[in-house]
Every structure is written in structure tokens, then in C-alpha cells.
């Protein structure tokens, strides 16, 4: 079976006046059709860069330095811009944190949806409108006919994000990349939007890459997780396994730092220090200055992702290399 | 020392050193300003000293033409003054008036803009309507009107001695709304930021919040505007002097020099008008080019067309 998405050794660099900066340092993962994956990390971990580089949307001065991205068996990372454009927004859709990145404020919802459909399919305007109506009702937008005539600013934040999801569904994509889709929304609306996304993915067997810092949301929606730190994946595996028994010290720290239900108001576990700047990533394991288990080897050698064959998932940490 | 180190590592300096137009403009402007303010030292003649001026030397062409005199590099004007020296002294007056007027504009505009933006409400409406009224008179109209009144009351002789402060005042008053509007707009933006609220939570009086906290954060647009306004003020002064309402011919600015030579342009003495004209264009051009660069550096978000 071919994977829906197969990312191999992806390296993304940024060309700056002081030299090249490595934002993504050899990312590997696969996604099966209909599989939902969470890409988790703090700001600066490179999770958004990873999402953007899959569809080659890295803007200057960033560029893909090496590695391949295979989508349904095609090597899309080698595609020229024209061909890429055909895949983007057609077979792969993207949802951003800010709905206004997708929506044009001076055009009505209807115009934007019809345009999107007609750009990728040869259909009449009336047929395109029908498709738009169908997708709007699919995301539970009340009176979709009325919404088609409205402008983005007339809708509330949650409604806008639902319209964006409806737009991303227009071309029946097989993969959706959602970059912090609910970060700007309130909790009740976040729950609604995420539940909707989950339902749609299940119904149409769509793949989902959910880029977020919120482990709670990820554990509700996804089947597997990749945790990123300073441009690398430090741990990946099935969601339950990672959430209930994280192995990488960073993942452990991240989960322990979350205020969890029933907390008696005591001190929270805190990871000392902060994520290194991309310009000054420490040698060896990038996490070692903040890690309580740091050993000599951690300062010298960068650990690679590996599995031990017993526990599901992969981890990039020297702690587990000893038992190998 | 710390400040110097910060400056050396700053983006400001970096972008300056990587922009040949900005560097070129800056060098030309620096040379012009230096020679203008150093005029008494470097000018070969003193155009203000009537004893050194001989009417017999009038309208001598520049050295590369026939009938030239090696003493006068760029020739002489109708009164026998050395063109080069007169232009240097004239540029000095133009720069003094331009900078002085801009300072006055900035002073009035910043204070009123700050108060209008921070206090809001009726004070804001009142000050901004005042600015609108002021802007609906053109600078020239105000200046013509006021200088006519001034000359009628105090006489032409008094006007000649008071010309520089008078022009500073007229151009300064006519253009303050530019500053007031710019400052008010950025105060409105800054006022919403949380550091201002933090200062209010501390209980600082509004005057202190305005001056110590908000004003330093509105400096970028003020700096950008200032370059434009200096160029503008120099041009206004030149226009007034050209119309005969500005600097008298005994203490000419670039504008009055252009004007004085205008009568002779068809009798063949083109240099009396053309040289100061070129100098004025060059001066305005380099200031504007430098202003464009400052704007690019300080507003990186600005769309570069």
C-alpha cells in the first residue's frame, strides 16, 4: 500500500545575511490514507515550517535544501510551481490559524467558494454554487444560502473558521494540513470546530496533519503524534502511547507542565530554560541544556530516532540507546 | 559607549551601508551642509561686505566662458557679487530657515498632536478642526498675507532685518498640522498598548505618560516626516523669496538669488539664475532621497512599490 504522505529526510533552511539557518533538520514520517497525525511543539520548534514545506509553501528566504516529499506515490517536492499549484488547494488543503489568511475580505463567501471550485474543476456557476451550499451545510452552517452572500467580516470567528474548512473541502482533498486552526478561538467554539474536523476526516477518509502546541486537542483528535524540538522530531508514535507514557524527557516535561484536572494547586513541573534560538542550537542533543538526564554523550552526539521493537513509537534520546 | 556599540550593530547602519543611493545622498548633503555653514571660512568672497563689491564686476560669466575673471569661479551677479560665495551664503540662509521652520512646526505639532491624541474627546476634535482650518490655507497664501501686513506696519527696512525669524515663523505656523496629524495618529496607536496602561496603573500623571512613554515611541514617523518637511520648508522659503516676499536681495537666500537673476536670463546672464537653481534642486533632491531611505528603514512593513 502506498502511503498518503511520505516525508523523507526533509531539510529546510533559511538564507539570512549571516548565513544559512537550518529550520528543519531531517524530518521523516509517513501518513496512511485517512490517518490523523499531530505535529506538536512550542513556537520555534519548526512545526509550522514542516507543514508549509510539505506543500512547498515555504516563502523566501526559506528553501528546501534536501529530502523528498511523496504524496500518493508522487514526488511532489520535485514538482514545478505550476504542477504544485494543482495539488495545493486541490488534493491537499491547508487551514490556517487566522481564517482571514484564506478569506478575502472584499469578496463574498459565495464568490470565493465558487471561484475555488471553478479554478480546479470544469463546472458551471450554478453547479459550483450547489457544491458550495452542500459543503457549507456539511460544516453545520445555518442558512447556508444567506451566508453565500455575506462578507467574511459579517461572520463570527468560529463561523469564519468553519467557512474556511468548508472551502478546504470543496475539492474533496485527501489530506488536510491544519496549522493551529483553533488557537484564536474560544474553548466552546474550539471544541465544536475540532469535533467537526474529526467527523469530516472520518466520514471522507481524509488524512489530517494537525499542527498545534495544544496536547489536549491533539490527544482528542489524532491517532499518532510527532513531537518536535528545535527543528527535529524527538519522539513519534501512537497518540495513546505518547500521552500516557512519554519517553523523551522533553515530551515528559511538556506533559507534566500541563496543569491537569484535580491539581491541588501545587507547583507545576517546569522545564528549566527555553527553546534555543535556531541560530544557536546546542551541539549534540539540542535538548541537553534543559534535560535533567543529560549525559556526556548527549553533549557530543545528536541522537537519531529509533524504535526498540517492544514499545510502539520512535524516540531520539540516548537514554534508551543504552538498552538497545 | 554603549549607545555607540548599539548603533554599530544596528540594522539602521547596516541598511545604510548597503544602500548606495542613501550613502551618496548623505555624502552630498553633508558636503552641502558643511560648505553652507562653513561659508565664512571657505567662500572666496564675503557677499555681505559691501566694501569688497565692485559694481564694475557685475555679470561676469563663469571661468570657462569668454570675458571671464579667474577671481570669480562661477561668475558674478548683477551687483558684482561672486556667485559661488553668494550661493554658499544663500544656501546657509535657506538651510537655517528650513530647519528652523521645521523645528517650530515640530514643536507646535508634536505638543498639540500629543494632547489631541492622548486626551481625545472634545479637545481632540477642537485641535484637529483647527488643523483642518490651517491646512485649508496654503503656506504661500498665509505668508503673502502676513508679510504684506508686516511690511505695511513696520516698513520694508524693519522687514529686511527681521526676515529670517519672520520666515521661520510663517512657514512654521503654516505647516504644523502635518506634525499634529502624524503624531496624533501614532499616539492613538500607542495609547492602546499595554505599557501605557501599565504606566496608568502605577498612577503616573498624564503629562509624564505622554512625554516619557508615548512620545519616544512616536519618534520614527516624526523623523520620517521631518526630512520631508525640511525639504518642503526650504522650497516654501525659495518660493516666497522668488515672489519677493522672502529674503531681501542684500541677504539673499537661494530663492531670492534665483529671482534676482531672472531679469537677466534673457540678456544672456543665465548663470545668475541657473546656478542657484541647480543647487536648490540638488539640495532638495538629496534630502528627499535620504527621507525615502529613512522611511524604508523605519517602516519595514510599508509596501515597497
Amino acid at each position, binding site marked *: 500500500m502506498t502511503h498518503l504522505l511520505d516525508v523523507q529526510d526533509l531539510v529546510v533552511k533559511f538564507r539570512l545575511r549571516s548565513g544559512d539557518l537550518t529550520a528543519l533538520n531531517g524530518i521523516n514520517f509517513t501518513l496512511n490514507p485517512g490517518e490523523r497525525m499531530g505535529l506538536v511543539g*512550542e513556537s520555534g520548534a519548526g512545526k509550522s515550517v514542516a507543514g508549509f514545506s510539505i506543500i512547498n509553501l515555504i516563502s523566501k528566504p526559506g528553501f528546501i535544501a534536501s529530502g523528498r516529499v511523496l504524496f500518493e506515490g508522487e514526488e511532489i517536492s520535485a514538482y514545478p510551481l505550476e504542477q504544485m499549484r494543482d495539488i495545493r488547494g486541490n488534493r491537499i488543503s491547508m487551514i490556517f490559524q487566522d481564517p482571514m489568511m484564506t478569506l478575502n475580505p472584499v469578496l463574498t463567501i459565495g464568490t470565493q467558494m465558487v471561484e475555488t471550485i471553478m479554478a480546479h474543476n470544469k463546472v458551471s456557476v450554478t453547479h459550483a454554487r450547489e457544491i458550495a451550499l452542500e459543503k457549507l451545510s456539511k460544516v453545520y452552517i445555518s442558512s447556508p444560502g444567506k451566508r453565500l452572500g455575506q462578507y467574511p467580516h459579517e461572520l463570527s470567528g468560529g463561523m469564519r473558521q468553519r467557512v474556511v474548512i468548508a472551502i478546504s473541502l470543496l475539492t474533496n482533498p485527501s489530506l488536510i494540513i491544519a496549522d493551529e486552526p483553533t488557537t484564536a478561538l474560544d474553548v466552546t467554539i474550539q471544541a465544536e470546530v475540532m469535533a467537526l474536523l474529526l467527523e469530516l476526516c472520518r466520514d471522507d477518509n481524509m488524512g489530517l496533519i494537525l499542527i498545534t502546541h495544544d496536547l489536549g486537542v491533539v490527544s482528542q483528535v489524532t491517532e499518532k503524534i510527532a513531537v518536535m524540538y528545535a527543528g527535529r522530531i524527538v519522539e513519534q508514535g501512537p497518540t495513546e502511547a505518547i500521552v500516557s507514557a512519554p519517553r523523551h524527557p522533553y515530551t515528559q516535561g511538556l506533559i507534566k507542565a500541563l496543569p491537569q484536572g484535580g491539581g491541588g494547586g501545587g507547583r507545576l513541573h517546569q522545564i528549566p530554560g527555553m527553546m534555543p534560538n535556531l541560530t544557536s542550537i546546542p551541539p549534540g542533543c539540542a535538548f541537553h541544556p534543559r534535560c535533567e538526564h543529560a549525559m556526556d554523550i548527549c553533549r557530543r552526539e545528536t541522537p537519531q530516532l529509533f524504535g526498540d521493537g517492544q514499545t510502539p513509537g520512535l524516540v531520539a534520546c540516548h537514554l534508551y540507546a543504552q538498552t538497545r | 559607549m554603549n549607545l555607540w556599540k548599539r548603533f554599530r550593530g544596528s540594522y539602521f547602519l547596516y541598511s545604510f551601508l548597503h544602500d548606495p543611493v542613501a550613502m551618496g545622498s548623505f555624502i552630498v548633503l553633508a558636503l552641502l551642509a558643511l560648505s553652507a555653514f562653513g561659508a565664512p571660512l571657505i567662500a572666496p568672497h564675503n557677499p555681505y561686505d559691501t566694501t569688497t563689491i565692485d559694481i564694475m564686476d557685475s555679470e561676469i560669466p563663469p571661468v570657462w566662458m569668454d570675458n571671464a575673471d579667474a577671481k570669480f569661479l562661477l561668475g558674478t551677479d548683477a551687483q558684482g557679487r561672486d556667485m559661488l560665495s553668494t550661493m554658499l551664503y544663500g544656501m546657509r540662509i535657506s538651510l537655517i530657515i528650513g530647519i528652523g521652520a521645521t523645528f517650530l512646526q515640530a514643536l507646535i505639532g508634536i505638543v498639540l498632536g500629543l494632547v489631541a491624541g492622548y486626551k481625545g474627546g472634545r479637545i481632540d476634535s477642537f485641535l484637529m478642526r483647527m488643523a483642518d482650518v490651517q491646512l485649508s490655507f496654503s503656506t504661500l497664501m498665509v505668508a503673502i498675507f502676513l508679510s504684506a501686513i508686516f511690511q505695511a506696519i513696520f516698513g520694508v527696512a524693519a522687514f529686511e532685518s527681521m526676515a529670517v525669524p519672520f520666515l521661520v515663523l510663517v512657514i512654521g505656523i503654516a505647516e504644523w498640522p502635518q506634525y499634529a496629524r502624524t503624531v496624533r495618529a501614532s499616539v492613538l496607536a500607542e495609547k492602546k*498598548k499595554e505599557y501605557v496602561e501599565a504606566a496608568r496603573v502605577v498612577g503616573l500623571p498624564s503629562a509624564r505618560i505622554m512625554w516619557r512613554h508615548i512620545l519616544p515611541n512616536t519618534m520614527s514617523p516624526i523623523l520620517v516626516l521631518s526630512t520631508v518637511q525640511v525639504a518642503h520648508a526650504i522650497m516654501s522659503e525659495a518660493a516666497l523669496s522668488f515672489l519677493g516676499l522672502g529674503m531681501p536681495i542684500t541677504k539673499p537666500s537661494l530663492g531670492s538669488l534665483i529671482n534676482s537673476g531672472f531679469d537677466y536670463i534673457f540678456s544672456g546672464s543665465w548663470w545668475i539664475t541657473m546656478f542657484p537653481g541647480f543647487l536648490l534642486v540638488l539640495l532638495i533632491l538629496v534630502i528627499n532621497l535620504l527621507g525615502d531611505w529613512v522611511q524604508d528603514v523605519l517602516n519595514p512593513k510599508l509596501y515597497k512599490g
Partner: protein
Amino acid sequence: MKAHTTEPLVSITNLVKHFDISGGFLDRISFAGGLPSLTTTTVKAINGVSLDIRQGEILSVVGESGCGKSTLGRTVLGLYPPTSGKIAFRDMRIDNLSAQDMLPYRRRMQMVFQDPYASLNPRMTVRQILEEPTRFHFPDLSTSQVQDKVAEVMRQVGVDPAWAGRFPHEFSGGQRQRISIARALMVDPEFIVADEPISALDVSIQAQILNLIMDCQERFGLTYMFITHDLSVVEHISTRVAVMYLGTLCELADKKNLYGDPQHPYSRALLSAIPRLGTKGFSHIRLKGEVPTPINLPTGCVFHTRCPHVNERCRNEIPKLLGRPNGSQAACHALEEGRI
């Protein structure tokens, strides 16, 4: 006077705050029924909130965007004058004081802001930022005393005092938030309003700042009003929680009561929507429709347009905050009538 845990430090009584957003004269002219008339548009941000903040507690105010929680904090601190109602600090009414009379209270009540990038003046060094409030409120201190205090407070919040000469942009978001807390601590306050102090920070940094906030409470006996939308944080740090919706207090309860046994239908919906680690899928209570605009408030209970238990009385009569058997207070007719 005895310090007692149930003694109110700050009392808010029937607080109302409306903002006039009508704009200029020309914007206000409307033609109703053929005749020109002046209309006023007001945002009803807070509508009659009564609340005591007890000495030494962390009272969290939660609610979704637009519920008036930030306005409440700012009005309590006197950043906005209240439209009506009373605010008292240790039984002394402070909402109607002149700027001069307010000064001693300014020192005792401080604020920590949400955006660590906007809350520090970019043109001032950290030393200037920290010295200013101290010099202003303690003019008798000598220069060296002020400097000692800056160094001491910087150490307390975990920022190296050697960095005092730097500008805010040279620090990371977490460090800036520490500096922001340091500025509040510089004047030895008793009460701090923290307006979403961690929502702009990364998860691992959030824990650091939350710990710092709790440490300060312990060390200086501070009382907090903690404004946030993050319900899992609230569960961790608060003593009591106030749930707000559209400028109204829905429920006021001890943390345990609220999370174990939420009363108000809105609190129930809100709590069910918290993303929990290790739960699959969603089981949140779906609310119909959207939050109405605070310009045109619904009549009666502000929540009635979305409430699953609405009846005629809810549409007409504003519910009062009443005690519940479990010790919580909630404003709901359905609860009062025993319908839910």
C-alpha cells in the same frame, strides 16, 4: 484589625460599565420615521457584577472573549471609570476618588498584562522600567536604595540583575513576562490583577510563570484576580472561580465545587469543552447559536438565547445570583426552580 481569610480585600458592588461607541456627531444622526434623531450606541461590557475578592485568595475570572472579564479587571483598578456601582478596597470606596486621593491605592493594586511584547515600553531599559514606579511612589528612597530594590526584585522573579541595562526586545517572551511581574512587585502591592498573563506563552514557559505567580502569592501574601480563558490553568491555581458571560456573573464557586459540580448551564457547557489529555473524541455540550453582541443584550437572562433549559421567565426576568446547596452561587431561574 484581624486578617481573616474570608474578609474581603476588594468588594465590587453592582458594577456596570458601558462604553459609548457612537462616534462623532455626524455618525450619530439617524432617520427614524422620517425625522432626524441622535442615536447612541453603547457596548454593555459589564452589567451589574457583585463580587468580593478575599484577602489572600486567587480569584479566577473565566469566560470567553467578549464576556467583559478584562474590562472588569481594568475597571477595578480604575483604568476605566465605572458607569455605576461601587468598588471598595478594604471597605474604603475608591471608584470616585480624585487622581491624587487614588495614589495610595495605586501602589497597593497592580496589574500584569497579557502581551509581554506590548506591556513593556520598548524605548526604556529594564532598569528604567522598574525604577520608575518605585521612585514615583517612594520619593524618599535614595538612588542606591532604589537600585538595590531593582536588583532584589529581579532576582525574585528569576531575571539576572546584570541584565538591567538591556532593552525589552533583547528578552524572550517568558523573561519579559517576569519583568512585567517585577514591575508590579516593585511597589509592594497587596492586590494584583493578572490579565491573561500566560496565554501568549509557550507551554513549558507557562508552567514557569504560573509557578512564579504562585510563589509570589505565598512569599508576599498577595491577593490575585486572575483573568483567563484557560480553564485547566484555573483549575490548577485558583481558590475560587467566577464564570462570566456577556458582562454578567453566571456562577461564583470554590474551585472544587465548580469543577466537580458545575451549576449554571453555561458553566457546564464551558467545562465540558476543555480539551483533556488522554480522552478520545469529543463529548462536549453543544450550545446552539452564537454569543449575542453586547450592544444589543438579550432581555432577561443573557444566556437564554443559547440555553437548553430556557422558559418564558428566563426571557423576561434577569436571574439573581443565589446560593446553591453545594455552596456555590449561580444566577439561573432553572436552578432556582429546580428544573435542572
